[in-house]
């Protein structure tokens, strides 16, 4: 029974999902808005329980970890930190989706799938066994495939779902194939056991094959170049709230899984994967930023900038010092706030354009639709400005603090050239972020003032609060991230 206590946040999330699914079939379409509030409450409760769980883990000032269910799940600082990320994203998405699902007949499916996806991500963060990790990974993926294609009358959404599904399935196959090699060489699926038997992996080329396949498998989820092909289409075509869940949440799931598998289980093969990740990080951030410059669809631009951000986080693998991992983990949280918020802000504009039926309707998130947004929707424009400046890494925002820790650790580790590439990339990214700000604040508006729907406004404010809190008062976050990084050493 003790073991269940550690899983309280997950249980709350799943129970809320099931309750919503059940309540939804009995409610009339008008009262289905209630489900959104129920989901928000459930996620808030889970968030509270996760924060409380840090107390359970602290013993005489030190963070300890627990293994539960015959060593298949780990409850430690790393898992809880990533659960925090997933729940924060789920909270922002759940609030925004109250408006998105207004008068929809499929509210219960949306929230149930979203909560099940969140549950899958949370279990991935805890997984201490390859099979558990794979099952949870697939749970989260399957739920998000459905969500990406949620607007079934919208061909773009269907295209997004289809591409995501096909690529996701292939990546799952590659990942599973990699895991079979690890299992074949070491004879176990338990991550600590693999680490103990890692000599068997280094003594044969099988270990190398496994590393390549696993990098490819996780690379798809993390959207590292050259495994990124699905990401721009999916992020652009999927409903904005779902893109927000995918870019901010699902992507971190790939990272936490990679942290556990590469750094803990395959520690013996560090030179191999470290080299691979160094190349991937450089290619990913450069490609993402260069392509983002020429995008006219804001969601697509955010998708490419999301690639670049994944490149920065992947630097943690390339540097592999405790400080770099702290930076990478912190960046994951910062990116969750900024990217979730930015996609929601784009979603507000899409909502405005489609409900007014004015502007570029074919691509509702086109840059032209952001003209004069500062006058039309001051709150959305201001939040969007905060998010893009945070993404570019301007103080006092979360993006700056995370980049500061990450880049300074890179220099401290003697990889100055990598830090220079990353900083040049940040400078380049400022170009297209500033262009968006110019469209919003300098160009004249093409319509009257529109007041944001209440749920969107709240979701944006939560994300803004997170971005600013991490930027202005970073100590607690740095401390949490440091504790999380220590788990990996």
């Amino acid at each position: 029974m003790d073991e269940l206590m550690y899983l309280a946040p997950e249980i709350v999330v799943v129970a809320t999902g099931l309750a919503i699914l059940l309540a939804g079939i009995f409610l009339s379409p008008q009262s289905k808005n209630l489900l959104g509030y129920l989901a928000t409450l459930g996620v808030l409760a889970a968030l509270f329980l996760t924060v409380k769980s840090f107390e359970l883990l602290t013993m005489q000032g030190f963070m300890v970890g627990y293994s539960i269910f015959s060593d298949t799940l780990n409850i430690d600082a790393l898992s809880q930190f990533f659960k925090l990320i997933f729940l924060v994203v789920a909270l922002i998405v759940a609030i925004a989706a109250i408006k998105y699902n207004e008068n929809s007949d499929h509210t219960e499916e949306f929230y149930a799938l979203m909560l099940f996806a969140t549950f899958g991500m949370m279990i991935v963060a805890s997984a201490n066994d390859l099979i558990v990790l794979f099952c949870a990974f697939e749970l989260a993926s399957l739920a998000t495939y459905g969500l990406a294609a949620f607007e079934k009358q919208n061909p773009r959404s269907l295209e997004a779902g289809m591409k995501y599904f096909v690529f996701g399935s292939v990546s799952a196959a590659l990942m599973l194939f990699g895991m079979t090699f690890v299992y074949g060489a070491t004879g176990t699926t338990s991550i600590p056991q693999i680490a103990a038997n890692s000599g068997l992996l280094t003594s044969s080329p099988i270990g190398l094959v496994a590393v390549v396949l696993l990098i490819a498998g996780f690379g798809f989820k993390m959207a590292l170049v050259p495994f990124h092909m699905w990401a721009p289409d999916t992020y652009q075509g999927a409903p904005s709230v779902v893109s927000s869940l995918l870019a901010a949440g699902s992507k971190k799931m790939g990272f936490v899984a990679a942290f556990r598998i590469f750094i803990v289980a395959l520690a013996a093969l560090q030179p191999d994967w470290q080299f691979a990740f160094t190349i991937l990080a450089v290619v990913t951030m450069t490609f993402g930023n260069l392509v983002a410059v020429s995008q006219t669809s804001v969601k697509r631009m955010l998708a490419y900038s999301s690639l670049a951000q994944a490149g920065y986080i992947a630097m943690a693998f390339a540097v592999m010092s405790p400080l770099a991992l702290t930076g990478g983990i912190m960046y994951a949280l910062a990116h969750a706030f900024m990217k979730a918020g930015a996609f929601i802000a784009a979603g507000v504009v899409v909502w405005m354009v489609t409900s007014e039926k004015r502007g570029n309707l074919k691509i509702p998130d086109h840059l032209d639709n952001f003209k004069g947004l500062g006058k039309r929707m001051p709150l959305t424009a201001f939040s969007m400005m905060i998010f893009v400046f945070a993404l570019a890494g301007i103080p006092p925002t979360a993006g700056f603090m995370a980049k500061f820790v990450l880049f300074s650790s890179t220099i401290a580790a003697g990889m100055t050239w990598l830090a220079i590439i990353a900083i040049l990339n940040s400078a380049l990214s400022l170009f297209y972020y500033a262009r968006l700000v110019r469209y919003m604040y300098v160009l004249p508006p093409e319509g009257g003032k529109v007041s944001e729907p209440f749920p969107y406004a709240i979701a944006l404010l939560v994300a803004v609060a997170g971005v600013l809190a991490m930027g202005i008062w970073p100590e607690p976050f740095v401390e949490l991230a440091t504790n999380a990084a220590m788990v990996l050493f």
Partner: protein
Amino acid sequence: MTGIIDSYIPVAIFLAVGLIMPPVTMFLVKQLSPRSRAANKYTTYESGSIPTGTARIQFNVEYYLYAIAFVLFDIEVLFLYPWATVYKGHGITTIAVVEMLVFVFILLFGYLYLWKKEALTWVK
């Protein structure tokens, strides 16, 4: 290590044969067989009835829903077997019953959902 590689030799032979055989066969057929370029040659069924209409028609998805519902409960039953074999003699009777009830009830949710969404009624 050589032992593992050696055991893959039959696979390699299979692969080689598999790669060589189709081109060789196709080449031989192309050399030996007579070609006909009559108009009849290009109909869908060379010696059958002439097809009418387009092949791109929509099929009813009802069967598909039934199949999914069936798989759902098929898996449930399948899962009960291993559960039954470890049920006794491990001192986990209480927790095993609770776990299985949770599992069955979650699937019951699914059933209720299917039912209420009218996935089980045959729409004409």
